[in-house]
């Protein structure tokens, strides 16, 4: 058995690692050694999820050395972010958002998007691998007698990550030399962290309660509903709904503040360059935190020091008013909207530019309204907030105000006594706690897969020339299928030709939660989202000649580590696993 249980929050902008000893209840945050500057290694609670691809003679020899690697080929962490501001063409960031991006193949070298010719780009998968590898190396450096590969490791992903993105996360871990990892959902991890910090939690929620978890990270916003039920006198927790994947987070808010301040400077005739803008961004973030807190001052000064050695002379002064910030953040991102609000949809251009598919509507509250409606007009009784952005009391109050305007019964906040301390690290914490819960030392949320999955089946209607045959969708994985269980569909047979790859179009839905396995949906509509196709290749016969058609049935299986697997099973018991083909997905989009 492993000595430690390790929870990793692999975030869009920052990552964290927490661990617990297998036989102790304590969960501890691991300080991560990383380059703080050229030639300086220091430990920080967070590892910046940034990667810099240094040029050949860019740094003095040895300046990038890490305790475990004298000559790393890339920089990971804080210094990558610092240097990346000065030279953005070599900076890889937001790799995580690219893992779930439908419009490009995350295994292809795409990043940095704006790299000049001559810089060898890397894939989002490779960037994720490097972050995980850095974490592993830092851990191994500190635990020579308990290497990470021998421990129990959990990695969190947004609840809204689809099966292909989860698969890629696990692949990145495997490539980084991790043991078999368990993938868990971030909002659930945040809830576990709350349980861990509040031993009296059983007195604070009761059967019949419905807990809404709102997790706003740097790059994503995630909603989850957890219901509390009574199972023969035992309190049970069940995750009953998760939201759509929303690329909208704290970074977008900071950028909005910086753009606003930049405009104010521009009105006074001051134009900022890229580095000054970055300084403004940093200051805007700090100002935002101050101005959205309780008892905030009326304004906050912004100072951009002069470039060059004329520091005082070139200093630009400005200030940002509390009312402006509140207007910008509260009305821009958390407006008061009715319960039937609908977020603006993307107007898709005929040719989608390769880039991230940011949420078209910045109003988090509209997305929340839609999420609750899709979850059967859910009326949450409790609210748990997670993520750095939600440390601000003004945003917190606004969320309550909006939620309470939608329903008669007031929502109660699940507060942490130590809440202010670290909404940033709760996810890693919760993951480590959950790792223990799985071994029987703590409560466990039941949930299973957060979506219904379908394979596309060409309808047998005569095809119209020039039009693809209409597709039907066969539910192969029902919503909530639990870890360790499987579903067989014996009634539906597919004919696979030996030696030829067979491909299945693959769809998912977060809203259709009652379709049983085997249910056939006659039309593929808006409630379904197409994922990367799944493919399988039946190995050809040794002689390479004989053609054979094998009738197979589909079998779905959710592993103990939470991974979804689809298998083709022949009558004689032979089995072949279906794998995601992310390349196809990119081509289709």
């Amino acid at each position, binding site marked *: 058995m492993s000595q430690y249980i390790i929870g990793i929050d692999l975030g869009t902008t920052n990552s964290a690692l927490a661990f617990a000893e297998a036989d102790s209840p304590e969960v501890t945050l691991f300080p991560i050694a990383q380059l703080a500057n050229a*030639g300086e290694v220091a430990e920080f609670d967070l590892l910046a999820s940034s990667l810099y691809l240094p040029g050949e003679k860019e740094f003095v020899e*040895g300046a990038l050395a890490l305790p475990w690697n004298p000559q790393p080929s890339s920089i990971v962490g804080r210094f990558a972010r610092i240097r990346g501001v000065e030279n953005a063409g070599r900076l890889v960031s937001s790799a995580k958002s690219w893992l779930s991006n439908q419009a490009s193949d995350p295994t292809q070298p795409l990043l940095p998007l704006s790299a000049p010719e001559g810089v060898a780009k890397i894939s989002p998968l490779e960037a994720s691998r490097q972050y995980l590898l850095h974490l592993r190396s830092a851990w191994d450096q500190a635990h020579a007698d308990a290497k990470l590969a021998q421990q129990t490791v959990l990695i969190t992903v947004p609840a809204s990550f689809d099966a292909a993105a989860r698969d890629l996360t696990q692949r990145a871990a495997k490539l980084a030399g991790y043991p078999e990892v368990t993938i868990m959902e971030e909002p659930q991890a945040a809830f576990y962290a709350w349980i861990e910090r509040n031993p009296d939690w059983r007195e604070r929620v009761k059967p019949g309660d419905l807990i809404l978890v709102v997790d706003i990270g740097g790059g994503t916003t995630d909603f989850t509903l957890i219901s509390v039920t009574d199972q023969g006198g035992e309190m049970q927790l069940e995750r009953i709904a998760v939201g759509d994947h929303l690329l909208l987070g704290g970074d977008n808010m900071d950028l909005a503040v910086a753009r606003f301040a930049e405009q104010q400077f521009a009105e006074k005739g001051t134009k900022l360059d890229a580095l000054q803008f970055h300084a403004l961004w940093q200051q805007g973030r700090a100002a935002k935190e101050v101005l959205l807190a309780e008892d905030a001052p009326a304004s906050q*000064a912004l100072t951009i020091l002069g470039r060059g*050695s004329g*520091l*005082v002379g070139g*200093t630009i002064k400005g200030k940002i008013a509390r009312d402006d910030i509140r207007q910008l953040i509260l009305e821009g991102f958390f407006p008061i909207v009715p319960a039937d609000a609908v977020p603006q949809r993307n107007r898709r251009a005929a040719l989608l530019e390769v880039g991230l598919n940011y949420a078209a509507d910045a109003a988090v509250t509209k997305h929340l309204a839609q999420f609750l409606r899709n979850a059967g007009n859910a009326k949450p009784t409790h609210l748990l907030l997670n993520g750095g952005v939600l440390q601000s009391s003004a945003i917190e109050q606004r969320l309550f105000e909006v939620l309470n305007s939608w329903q008669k019964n007031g929502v109660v906040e699940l507060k942490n006594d130590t809440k202010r301390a670290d909404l940033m690290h709760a996810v890693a914490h919760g993951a480590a706690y959950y790792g223990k819960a799985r071994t029987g030392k703590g409560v466990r949320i039941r949930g299973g897969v957060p979506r219904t999955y379908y394979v596309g089946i060409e309808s047998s209607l005569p095809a119209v020339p020039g039009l693809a045959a209409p597709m039907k969708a066969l539910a192969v994985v029902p919503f909530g299928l639990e870890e360790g269980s499987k579903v067989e569909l014996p009634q539906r047979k597919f004919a696979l030709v030996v030696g030829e790859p067979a491909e299945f179009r693959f769809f998912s839905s977060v809203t259709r939660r009652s379709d049983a396995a085997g249910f056939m949906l006659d039309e593929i509509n808006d409630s379904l989202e197409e994922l990367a196709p799944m493919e399988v290749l039946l190995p050809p016969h040794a002689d390479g000649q004989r053609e054979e058609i094998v009738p197979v049935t589909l079998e779905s299986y959710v592993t103990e580590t939470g991974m979804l697997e689809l298998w083709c099973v022949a009558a004689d018991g032979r089995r072949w696993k279906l794998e995601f083909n992310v390349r196809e997905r990119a081509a289709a989009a």
Partner: protein
Amino acid sequence: MSRISAAFSSFFSLLFSGVLPESVATQFGYMKMKPAAAPPPETPKIKITDGALQMLQTLQRDARLVDFLMEDIAGYADDQVGAAVRSVHADAKASLARHVTLAPVIDGVEGTNHKLDGGKAPDPNRIKLIGNVPASGKAPGGTLRHRGWQATSVNLPPIGKQDVSIIAPAEIEIE
């Protein structure tokens, strides 16, 4: 190879470069000899002043302190200087805190009486007596005017191959 030409080429080669020519060495079976051990790797020589320059480098990088100190600020209005100083101060403080742990020498309240051992003169490193200092240099106590500062720990990265005399590199932006 003739004996004479081998002898001559060996003679001149040894005289000018200190090694046997390869052809001779091969002919007489000396090639199996291990090459002379490589000189020990050059350990960078760290001068006593390097640490000071490194600290300056650090404060310039993190807080632009050298830019600030080297600028002629006489002509600027107080609010202009003030705005810049707040920024430099915050950054320099954070930088200092990361690299040096500072503590007062005497953890007392300035302006109040502080007892000393009247039997002996205090350690001049730690305590400076000012005012009506007795000829013996010994005093039973006095008013604490300044608590003093001491570095209780220093955490600077090892100096590698960087040129510490460069406090800040010149910056050239490619448009």
